[in-house]
């Protein structure tokens, strides 16, 4: 059971914090403004071993634990949630390939996305299938030794940029006996014929994360690009999604901590009515709540991650952590702007940029409503 961090984990936090403050903070506004993917930061994060931390050393990973990776995402999101998301979405693709890929697939597709050379993406969502993942329509038909894929995907993080590596997508490969779609996962190399991107998506959050719209028009991939077993697509995705939820929660924690730190710093230096803002009880209470929520979220997330590290069930804990941390992050981002007053609206202030990011977190990797559904299902089962 998680009680306190090890000295190593503390040093990881210190290192990532310094990295985020020195390398990301100075360019964060520019990235936000230009909705630009941070290539240089991605490469440096790779060099530092941030990206592949919890994956096997055999595939260029760091052989580390998930709690440490949570700390990495938390510290990155404290400065810039979009940068953290690049690691998170990459990790989703990495998790699938690492768990279900063949040795060849791992050599070819996993290794480069753990070092920062390439970036991985995962494509599940479609215009007509968000939370309802079984409703996807993209199809894959076996034609001789090749799969022929047709359809489209939307809101796909890490896609559509120069270093996008493989995109792992879900497609319907048939109909099961019960009449439902048989869904399988495929590894689609970037840039192959028939695979194209749609317009650039403009977002209010995660702006420095490249988010693409994917089109597949008679895309042909060899049979061996099927990931794991045919028909196991949704099961595969579900098996890694609880981990993803911990990581999204960690990003919420980063926003909570960032909102708290920035609010306190602002209150300490800013004066109103002839006294520092720290003298105003209405504002002091806001940071009390923020600090309490930050602490609670941290305990929930670290606990879920340490369950994961110990190989124990953690589905309920990860959903609870995701629900709590992201909703409280939204609240904290909102209050941080309130504390900053007019400055809080300006995009040059990090608190304003975190606002859109917090909103994204309540939606991705299962909306708050889905989390409540899952938690209640696990409670009543």
């Amino acid at each position, binding site marked *: 059971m998680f009680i306190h961090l090890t*000295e*190593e984990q503390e*040093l*990881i936090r210190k*290192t990532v914090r*310094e*990295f985020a403050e020195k390398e990301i903070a100075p360019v964060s506004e520019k990235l936000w403004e230009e909705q630009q993917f941070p290539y240089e930061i991605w490469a440096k994060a790779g*060099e*530092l*071993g*941030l990206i592949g*931390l919890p994956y096997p*050393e055999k595939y260029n990973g*760091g*052989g*580390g634990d998930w709690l*440490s990776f949570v700390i*990495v995402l938390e510290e990155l999101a404290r400065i810039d949630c979009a940068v953290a998301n690049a690691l998170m979405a990459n990790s989703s693709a990495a998790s699938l390939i690492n768990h279900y890929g063949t040795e060849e697939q791992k050599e070819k597709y996993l290794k480069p996305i753990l070092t920062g050379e390439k970036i991985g993406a995962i494509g599940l969502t479609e215009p007509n299938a968000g939370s309802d993942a079984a409703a996807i329509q993209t199809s894959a038909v076996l034609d001789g030794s090749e799969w022929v894929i047709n359809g489209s995907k939307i809101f796909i993080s890490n896609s559509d940029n120069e270093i996008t590596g493989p995109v792992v997508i879900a497609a319907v490969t048939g109909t099961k006996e019960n009449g439902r779609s048989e869904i399988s996962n495929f590894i689609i190399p970037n840039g192959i014929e028939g695979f194209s991107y749609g317009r650039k998506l403009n977002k209010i959050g995660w702006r420095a994360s490249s988010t693409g719209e994917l089109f597949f028009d008679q895309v042909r991939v060899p049979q061996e690009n099927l990931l794991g077993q045919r028909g196991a697509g949704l099961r595969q995705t579900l098996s890694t999604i609880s981990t993803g939820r911990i990581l999204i929660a960690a990003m919420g924690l980063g926003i909570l901590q960032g909102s708290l730190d920035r609010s306190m710093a602002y209150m300490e230096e800013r004066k109103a009515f002839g006294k520092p803002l720290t003298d105003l009880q209405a504002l002091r209470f806001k940071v009390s709540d923020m600090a309490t929520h930050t602490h609670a979220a941290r305990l929930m997330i670290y606990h879920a991650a340490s369950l994961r590290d110990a190989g124990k069930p953690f589905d309920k804990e990860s959903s609870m952590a995701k629900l709590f941390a992201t909703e409280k992050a939204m609240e904290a981002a909102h209050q941080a702007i309130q504390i900053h007053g007019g400055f809080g609206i300006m995009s040059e202030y990090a608190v304003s940029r975190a606002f859109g990011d917090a909103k994204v977190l309540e939606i991705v990797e299962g909306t708050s409503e889905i989390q409540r559904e899952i938690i209640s299902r696990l409670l009543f089962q």
Partner: protein
Amino acid sequence: MKRTFDTEEKIIVENNRISKDGVEWVINPYDEYAIEEGIKLREEFGGEVTVACIGPSEAEKELRTALAMGADKAILVEVDEDELQGDEHTTAQLLASLLKDRPFDIILAGNVSVDNGAGQVAPRVAELLDIPQVTTITHLTVDADQNKATVERDVEGDVEIVEISLPALFTAQQGLNEPRYPSLPGIMKAKKKPLESIQLGDLKLEQQDLAAKTEVVEVFLPPEKKAGRILEGELEDQVKELAHLLHSEAKVI
């Protein structure tokens, strides 16, 4: 390597000494350049980088950071600073005694610590070991075949290019390099690297060798600076007023 207060720390004086309560510690920034340069030399020429520190047992944390950056070994000479009551002479004696029986090609150190700021220990050690030195270096090129090095050193803003025979001691100035962050796998490997802990008694030194040559009588803070005057009015008038004030009130121009 010395551990120092983080440069962001405010200084609080209590009972005639600097309070260490709740302080964030870091590797002395100038020593970080020295460690980085050592690792770079190892990457170029092979060999081994050992980081040595005189300090309390807590300094193990900063030594682990140095190991995480890529140093191979660490040595901590554990001392209780309050008990030792030493000065720069004391520290140099300890270091020289530690180093004299160990093989080395190059000794690197920070040119100054950001706390005490005397910059004495490294040159004192060079003298006690009877090796040459170049201080405040900003560039180092080693010629391993000729057993010498060419360095650039910062001399109050000008640059001196100096050739020196090895073994030698160098002190690092800002600009020498950009210290790397410890990589996460590096952090995880650091735990397994050797960290040798040495007690005062293990070094063959007499009490009289260590006795401080100087003593601190008082530690105090600078007088509180009075809030200055923010000038008002049209910008041009403000500038006129400023020039006038600097001339007639402050008498500095």
